[in-house]
């Protein structure tokens, strides 16, 4: 699936998007955050405070306990500051 990052999550991770295969055992948004945080220092910095990270599945806001299911795209970003 495609993973997208925005704002300072993107800057810390080091890229705007990537394709990943969901590892066995990763079923919820929270699982994926934990998995990504372990990849390297950049990811660790991006996800060091998981509770502030917002997530969207197929471009809709979701909570961290949401199952990823068959979503094609997941996005992680800080609280929004538009308007």
């Amino acid at each position, binding site marked *: 699936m495609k993973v997208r990052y925005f704002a300072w999550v993107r800057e810390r991770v080091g890229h705007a998007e990537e394709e990943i295969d969901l590892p066995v055992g990763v079923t919820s948004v929270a699982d994926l955050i934990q998995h990504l945080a372990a990849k390297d220092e950049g990811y660790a910095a991006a996800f060091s405070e998981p509770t502030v990270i917002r997530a969207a599945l197929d471009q809709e*806001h979701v909570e961290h306990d949401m199952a990823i299911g068959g979503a094609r795209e997941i996005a992680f970003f800080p609280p929004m500051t*538009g308007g």
Partner: protein
Amino acid sequence: MKSWNPDIRVQRESFDLSEESRRVTSDRADVGAVVAFTGYCRDEGETLAALELEHYSGMAEGEMLRIAREAAGRWPLLGLTIIHRHGRIVPGEPIVLVLAASAHRQPAFEAASFLMDYLKTRAPFWKKEHLRDGSEGDWVAAKEKDDSAANKWR
């Protein structure tokens, strides 16, 4: 009542308030009230050179449309426009327009206020500061009070 769809736009360019107002009021005479909110880039005490607005293309439009439909379900609106700019915006320039048309003033005021509160907390846009001293500033932090403003509509 004429049928209508919310007018949702995410764009680099600025917008013209009179033109947007005409767009929702022309060729009809059932609109009695239009509330237009324009949000501007401030210079933060002359420290800010520009804001860089990043957005999640596709989701931004989708979320703005969901918010607009939520407003249309809550108030008897006759037209609704939301324009949100992205890219580099300098102090004094407009960032966002929310325009709500109704027969009477109360629904137009409430819908416009609701839309702004929801946009702030649900539309995927992020502001990064570029400072006048040449340094790259921080990402603007989300405000606790924006969350509480949005929650009051629940």
